[in-house]
């Protein structure tokens, strides 16, 4: 098997997918309903794209989780990004995912069309070149994402300090998976029987971040990769645990995930950031200890405090009928929303779940919507 086949095609082999799905169906017989939350929007897309939900027996259901960083970003934070971009001396830099996310009054793309300086980049490190190119400007990096992108922002901060870059500030919006999932499990909204955790988060954090959830909620948790066979193997492990009446933490994506994770990345995060007491999530409300801010030693680089007097505190409410918040809590499907497809589409998104390429609404729009309930 060539490396190409091994890394890109082997985990999509249709014969193996059918065989594993058949085994799951067989072993799930007599189990009663098993509601599996896939925490990450990337998994939601993979499930829809490969039609994995259609291969499952009646009693296995996928519940879509909150792991879409753009979807969970509250309007107030996007409003702050837009306010920063509109400052005459500021050049705002952020990842491409943020382009169309609606704030109270349009998106960053709209602000750019109206003359604000906004750069959408592929990697945080691109901010260094932009800062060098605009020595007379105040460049602000608007950092977003879960544990998978947090160490990259930390690496940017350290690189900028090492290189003596003096015109780069940071607006930090990094959020953490376990606290959000814990808030969902604590609420009565969604009945969840097991979790599939995303492999890339645990490449950084290790699988260990889920151990408290396993212990507290007696839930099977399987950290899985993103290929169809990885996801199905995750489901199979959950079913195996359910049959045995067990609730354990299991790593499916052993080809890159360990229990402990990446120590270099974790040390970098610990040097650069500290936890916020609380962070407001779109749809989930305020969750304690669920986000990062700059560590004290970097507080002089914090655009959030430096420009605090430019931010308005009253974001406009989301469209009343938009169910994005309920969907992020796993308590509704995109197809439950009266605005889904008419008029809400990726071209004309009304809520953040339709904007983001990882949002559940975008996945349903793109890959069809037949879901067995």
């Amino acid at each position, binding site marked *: 098997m060539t490396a190409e086949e091994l890394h890109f095609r082997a985990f999509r082999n249709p014969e193996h997918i059918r*065989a594993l799905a058949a085994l799951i169906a067989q072993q799930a017989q007599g189990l009663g309903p098993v509601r599996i939350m896939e925490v990450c929007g990337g998994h939601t897309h993979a499930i829809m794209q490969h039609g994995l939900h259609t291969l499952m027996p009646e009693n296995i259901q996928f519940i879509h989780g909150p792991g879409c960083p753009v979807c969970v970003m509250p309007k107030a934070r996007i409003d702050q990004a837009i306010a920063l971009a509109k400052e005459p001396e500021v050049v705002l830099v952020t990842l491409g995912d943020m382009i169309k996310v609606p704030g109270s009054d349009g998106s960053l793309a709209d602000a750019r069309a109206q003359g604000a300086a906004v750069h959408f980049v592929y990697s945080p490190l691109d901010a260094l070149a932009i800062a060098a190119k605009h020595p007379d400007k105040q460049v602000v990096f608007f950092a977003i994402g879960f544990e*998978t992108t947090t160490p*990259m922002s930390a690496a940017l901060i350290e690189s900028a300090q090492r290189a003596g870059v003096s015109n780069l500030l940071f607006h930090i919006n990094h959020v953490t998976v376990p606290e959000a999932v814990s808030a969902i499990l604590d609420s009565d909204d969604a009945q969840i029987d097991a979790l599939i955790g995303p492999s890339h988060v645990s490449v950084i954090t290790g699988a260990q971040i889920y151990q408290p959830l396993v212990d507290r909620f007696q839930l099977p948790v399987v950290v899985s990769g993103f290929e169809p066979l990885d996801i199905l193997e995750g489901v199979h492990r959950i079913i195996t645990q359910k049959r045995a009446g067990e609730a354990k933490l299991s790593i499916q994506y052993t080809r890159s995930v360990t229990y402990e994770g990446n120590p270099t990345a974790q040390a970098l995060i610990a040097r650069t950031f500290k936890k916020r007491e609380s962070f407001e999530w779109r749809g989930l409300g305020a969750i304690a200890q669920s986000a990062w801010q700059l560590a004290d030693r970097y507080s002089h680089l914090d655009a959030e405090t430096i420009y605090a007097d430019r931010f308005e505190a009253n974001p406009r409410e989301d469209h009343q009928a938009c169910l994005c918040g309920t969907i992020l809590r796993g308590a509704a499907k995109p197809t439950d929303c009266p605005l889904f497809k008419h008029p809400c589409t990726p071209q004309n998104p009304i809520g953040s779940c339709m904007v983001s390429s990882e949002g559940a609404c975008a996945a349903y729009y793109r890959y069809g919507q037949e879901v067995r309930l």
Partner: protein
Amino acid sequence: MCLSIPSKIVSIDKEHNRAQVDTMGVGREVSLDLMPEPPQIGDYVLIHIGFAMNKIDEADALESIKLFEELLAAQDESGQGLP
């Protein structure tokens, strides 16, 4: 944003701790600042927004595929299961 892609290390620039990688035929440069151990040329790593995050263990991947093969063979033999 969140999907990390397997990519092959093509060359390494030790001085800047960066590497040239190949992602399904697309070349790009990535930072090695997050790598717990320095990779070798020919290694597969997971890439995410301009950084290599970790190595991918090929022996482990092959082991998984072997298990899928065995599962398929077992089902073919018993003549059941395949819809």
